[in-house]
């Protein structure tokens, strides 16, 4: 090579590039004091850069950042953490917990299996139960109405069907509103 290195060629050597292309450059640098000096100067600058320290932020920097970060816990992680909260820390406790949880899981599985196998019987029982609850609620409501309004009014409401029930409901709501307004007026007058 009968010329000095180009700046891009010095960069190649500075970056530690290897390969056939850099071999003649290295040979030239060994022979040429000008290029060798230039490369050494460039290396000194790079060394100075590489020795620059990392600067420390103020002591409470991390706390300040974390106070403004929304740490989002996905539901499945939250659920697992809640479960883990129930697990005892001692080995014996964990074994007992495992046995207990296993037994409960086995009983629940058997129960679910039993219900699945007798689904029609379960449906029948649930239907019967719902029927009884409905009858009981209607009887209680009838008794309440008869007691509050008298037998004749109850009979009238019952015979007029849905219309009668609607009129009764509106009348009760209106009475409640009227009573509330009256109470409020009395309270305001007393305060004055």
């Amino acid at each position, binding site marked *: 090579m009968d010329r000095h290195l180009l700046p891009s060629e010095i960069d190649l050597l500075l970056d530690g590039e290897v390969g056939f292309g850099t071999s003649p450059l290295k040979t030239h640098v060994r022979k040429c004091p000008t290029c060798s000096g230039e490369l050494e100067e*460039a290396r*000194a600058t790079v060394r*100075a850069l590489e020795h620059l320290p*990392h600067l420390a932020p103020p002591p409470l*920097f991390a706390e300040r950042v974390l106070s403004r970060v929304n*740490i*989002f816990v996905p539901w499945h992680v939250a659920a697992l953490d809640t479960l883990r909260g129930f697990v005892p820390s001692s080995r014996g406790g964990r074994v007992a917990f495992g046995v207990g949880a296993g037994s409960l899981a086995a009983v629940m599985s058997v129960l679910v299996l039993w219900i699945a196998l007798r689904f029609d019987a379960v449906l029948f029982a649930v239907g019967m139960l719902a029927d009884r609850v409905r009858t009981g609620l209607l009887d209680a409501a009838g008794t309440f109405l008869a007691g509050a309004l008298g037998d004749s009014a109850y009979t009238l409401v019952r015979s007029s069907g849905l219309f009668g029930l609607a009129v009764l409901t509106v009348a009760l709501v209106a009475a409640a509103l009227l009573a509330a307004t009256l109470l409020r007026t009395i309270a305001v007058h007393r305060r004055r």
Partner: protein
Amino acid sequence: MAPVLDLANLPDADVVALAQQGREPAYRELLRRYERPVFSLIFRMVRDRETAEDLAQETFIKVLNHIDRYRPEFKLSSWLFKIANNVAIDHLRKRTVDTISIDGSPHAATRAEIEATSFDVESRGESALEEVESRELGSAIERAIARLRPEYRSCIMLRHVEGRSYEEIAAMLDLPLGTVKTYIHRARKELRDALEHLRT
């Protein structure tokens, strides 16, 4: 209670995975790992401690609040440096920044303010003379970096302070590879010229 892990020995991707599960210690570990490099990059860009602190906070808040969007095929550090560089460049675009020395802000009126706005160059256990020389060169190079164009500054620091490859820098700064090489070449030349008086 979550199982106790030695977070310091985990790779970034694993720590991020824990952060994505809402583990606060993982957030702390990420901050511990990157607060100094990110703060240093921003500080050397904006040359003001308070502003650098605000911008570094903004960087971490952006990254940590969107940690669920992180894709493990990329380096976390590249993502962080990219955002840090963007916030610093945005800030520099918004206002003209005074060039200050590492000895403190020119706006500092009292000794306390000078101390608050200056930064320390850590000792590396050298002899007294070496330390003085090193500090002199350190100060000189800090001043020389401060005089570089912001684009050159971020490129040269990512290359030689953070040890990133040209390709990584190009990806981080959204610049063509050739542009990054040119910026680094020019920055090296400007720094070399600026430090010439120390060698003669």
